[in-house]
């Protein structure tokens, strides 16, 4: 293990992976309980357009992905309220439009197909220095904002009307959750890729929610599952020479399955 940790690429992957895992799990618990679990999947499609745009314009794709995803999530929230659409319909509209736009950008810049693959399937072991620090910084921002607004977010998620009656600016907080989701999806993309990023948000949180008796425990369990999945997935990836994105997500799935079986057994007693 010491020999492994001596590698710079592994240190960078661990550093970025752990911070991003914590951010994904924290946000995931709130999103699942708000019945917004699919927003991660929808945002991932939009991220594809952002990445393709960055590659087309020769700008750091992480920046264009961030900009496009944040603008889209604001659009989803606005259109949901103004047009009276259900949340999943608004997500479907933006995710399909985003993906279509991504295909057009890819078609316009035929030469960057290889680069695009690393974003589609993720490649945390190839993460560069600048991307590590940007990822850690953004993950810390997401974690800090969630911790700072923890009680308000819990109240709003549990009982939105009473939260509003208590003077909490629910609409503003809704927007904040949307923007945090956009940032987290872009971060998660670096770990497991666009195609699997929603799993980083949903699986650890879904696993934590299986066994938690209270909300604080749900948060802590989800964070633990997320971090263990990243660590375990990276180790498996190195030992078995498999893609890290697949091993990380599969590790999270195995833990979810384990927690689900424990819950089933506990409920039968």
């Amino acid at each position, binding site marked *: 293990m010491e020999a492994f940790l001596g590698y710079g690429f592994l240190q960078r992957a661990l550093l970025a992976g752990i911070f991003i895992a914590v951010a994904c799990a924290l946000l995931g618990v709130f999103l699942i309980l708000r019945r917004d679990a699919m927003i991660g999947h929808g945002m991932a499609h939009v991220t594809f357009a952002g990445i393709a745009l960055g590659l087309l314009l020769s700008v750091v794709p992480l920046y264009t992905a961030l900009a496009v995803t944040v603008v889209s999530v604001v659009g989803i929230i606005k259109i949901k309220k103004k047009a009276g659409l259900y949340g999943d319909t608004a997500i479907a509209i933006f995710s399909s439009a985003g993906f279509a736009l991504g295909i057009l950008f890819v078609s316009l810049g035929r030469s960057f197909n290889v680069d695009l693959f690393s974003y589609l399937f993720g490649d945390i072991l190839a993460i560069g220095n600048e991307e590590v620090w940007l990822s850690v910084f953004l993950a810390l921002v997401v974690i800090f904002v969630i911790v700072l607004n923890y009680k308000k977010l*819990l109240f709003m998620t*549990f*009982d939105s*009307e009473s*939260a509003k*009656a208590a003077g*909490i600016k629910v609409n503003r907080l809704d927007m904040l959750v949307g923007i945090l989701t956009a940032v987290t999806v872009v971060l998660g993309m670096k770990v497991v890729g666009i195609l699997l990023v929603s799993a980083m948000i949903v699986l650890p949180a879904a696993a934590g*929610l299986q066994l938690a008796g209270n*909300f604080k425990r749900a948060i802590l369990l989800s964070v633990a599952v997320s971090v263990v999945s990243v660590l375990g997935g990276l180790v498996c990836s190195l030992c078995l020479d498999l893609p890290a994105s697949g091993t990380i997500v599969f590790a999270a799935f195995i833990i979810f399955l384990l927690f689900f079986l424990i819950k089933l057994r506990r409920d039968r007693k």
Partner: protein
Amino acid sequence: MDSTAQKNKILIRVEDVSFHYGHQTVLSHVSLDMHTGDFLAVIGPNGSGKTTLIKIILGLLEPDQGRVKILGRSLGGFSEWSKLGYVPQNATHVDPFFPVSVKEVVDMGLIKEARSKQAGKEKGMEAISWALKQVDMEDQQNHRIGNLSGGQQQRVFIARAIVNKPVILFLDEPTTGVDAETQDRFYEMLGVLNKKEKMTIVLVTHDIGIVNKHVNRVACLNQKLIYHGDHDEFCRSEAFKSMLEGGHHLVSHRH
């Protein structure tokens, strides 16, 4: 200020409020005051605008016309949310999979309390214990709320609403889906909060019989304000008789 003046202090003033959902009138030119010490039942048939009125007072809906003053301040400039407690309609429809304990639910109510950050955890815990004691749920504080009965969940929501010791407590159809025996105990508990803790209580209900024992004021709505005054006078009034005879879906049963 003498005690009578203190007792009759206006806490909420609703002035000429009207509200429409599309072309349908829900409230038409409603004006009423709520005073210190009131245990007010807002009654009326289904669709009479009871819930809409409470939501307008709490700032959850904006009236098409008229205005609301809370503790002397217009709704737009009001910020002392810790002085209001609210138990919404269907509060007992809790998602059974939501992993939240009784203590965590009551703690949500402390968000409104500006002092809570400075006062720290200890004071918050004291307030939660006090609120749970009032509703006789102290022993259940670590239980998951989804595992409790409807009546117990209702008491937890009351505890959340009173944890800041509010001046006014609003309850919207609080006993829907709760059995008759639990309802009686529930109204007795509200009576204690009104008398012992000096909490003004505003209760939305279509069950005028069940509140006979405790309320001292009645506001009867049917888009317009039909009656607003003493409970005893209301029971003798034409408004009461005509509502019952008119076949409105009000439940009446004497104790």
